[in-house]
């Protein structure tokens, strides 16, 4: 640890973590704002408008509210898990960002050339899937620990949903990274389909909608958990965003910027924002899957198609050689 190089690498990593954490948390808050705004305009409303110009300070007000609200602990909850599950959800969702490269180039901080990624490991994508696969526990355990049958059912329902699209999602990536050719069209549809699903479970949606599907009004997991613990579930908004980031990285060609001067992180950001807008757009204009329809779709349509995709792409790769 006395090695100056090691120490500066540690310091730079710390700086990167802190900066990125700040950015991501702010982004999560503003994504809720963004979605509420877009949704409102699609429905001919104004959306948040009171706090700050165009409601821009609304996320801040929400954050303060989550922090200051009394954290009531109902009787009969499993104390440890009741507090740990929301934390787990937030932590896991956010830590996946560490593996995302934000631009191709390295930048110089404190005289050390450092790539625009926190953890550059050679199985980055797998690591992301590993972390998101543990994320299921946050939801399931939050539902269970609340000691309410509605929470339990909601938690189980959400996690069952998560599992049923996770599988096809992971498989759909195999095709892309096996070939790197753009037969990835099929895979890309799958991919988007997979990532379309987590959004209904983030409270962002059920929180803002006036009249969601009757059954889903009880979003289950977030029924009993309140205050800051509830706020933690907003961390899961990172997950769909992460999916969109991966989508942007995998499918929207990452050749050098068309417009000179807009490079690296900004180009990346533009791609992500574009996909994000389309995402919110689709979500608020097309009818939504009921959870059992979603699961049937996941297991009986997406999964076989994903398998077929893997077989066909590997066949194509093998024939090419």
């Amino acid at each position, binding site marked *: 640890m006395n090695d100056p190089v090691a120490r500066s690498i540690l310091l730079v990593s710390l700086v990167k973590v802190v900066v990125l954490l700040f950015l991501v948390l702010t982004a999560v808050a503003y994504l809720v704002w963004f979605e509420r705004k877009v949704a409102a305009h699609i429905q001919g409303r104004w959306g948040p408008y009171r706090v700050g110009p165009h409601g821009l300070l609304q996320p801040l007000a929400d954050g303060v509210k989550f922090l200051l609200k009394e954290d009531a602990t109902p009787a009969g909850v499993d104390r440890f898990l009741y507090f740990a599950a929301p934390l787990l959800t937030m932590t896991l969702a956010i830590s996946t960002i560490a593996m995302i490269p934000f631009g191709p180039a390295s930048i110089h901080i404190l005289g050390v050339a450092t790539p625009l990624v926190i953890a550059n490991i050679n199985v980055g994508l*797998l690591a992301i899937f590993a972390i998101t696969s543990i994320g299921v526990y946050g939801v399931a355990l939050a539902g269970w620990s609340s000691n309410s049958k509605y929470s339990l059912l909601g938690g*189980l329902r959400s996690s069952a949903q998560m599992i049923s699209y996770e599988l096809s999602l992971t498989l759909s990536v195999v095709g892309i990274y096996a070939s790197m050719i753009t037969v990835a069209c099929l895979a890309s549809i799958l991919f988007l389909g997979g990532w379309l699903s987590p959004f209904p479970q983030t409270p962002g949606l059920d929180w803002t909608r006036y009249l969601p599907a009757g059954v889903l009004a009880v979003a289950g997991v977030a029924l009993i958990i309140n205050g800051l613990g509830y706020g933690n579930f907003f961390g899961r908004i990172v997950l769909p965003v992460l999916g969109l980031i991966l989508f942007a990285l995998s499918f929207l060609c990452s050749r050098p910027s068309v417009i000179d001067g807009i490079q690296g992180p900004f180009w990346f950001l533009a791609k992500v924002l574009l996909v994000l807008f389309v995402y919110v757009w689709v979500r608020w204009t097309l009818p939504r899957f009921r959870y059992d329809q979603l699961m049937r779709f996941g297991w009986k349509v997406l999964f076989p198609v994903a398998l077929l995709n893997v077989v066909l792409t590997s066949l194509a790769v093998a024939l090419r050689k």
Partner: protein
Amino acid sequence: MTPQLLIFLVLAAIAIAGAVNVILQRHPIHSAISLITVMIALAGLFLLLESEFIAAVQIIVYAGAIMVLFVFVIMLLNAGAEERTDMSRMACYVGVPLAIFLLIELAYQIGAATLSMTPQPPAEDVTRGLSMLLFQDFVFPFELTSILILVAILGALVLAQRGESVPAKSGRETIT
């Protein structure tokens, strides 16, 4: 003390504490979570051995897939806290000494085996090497295992559906 050793000790401590906790906890859910902790600590150990792939797969398969099933089953069965009983005389006088004996034997054997080993230089690409082993050298046993698992799944399906003369109706529910 090198940082690697420090990380190893911390991870090993977490793994052992988790494993002990699996037995000590009275509620099945808490035991399951302890088991997940053990698996994640093991993944950390794999990471320390520079095999990132194994670490990721360890988490995806064990912590992410298998344990989710465990947790689901426990939750759906609504299993309560287990009751404690006094240790039976047999377990006390025969079981405990046997367990201690097994522990000593394992420690001795593994210790002896590790001492005689020479440290291998890390392979250039562990993931690649592993995939070569799995899909070329041992492709037949590997595929055979997959078929075995498939048969097990089908068997479970047949057992679960036995007695139901009418297969579960799929499609939309009728609203009356």
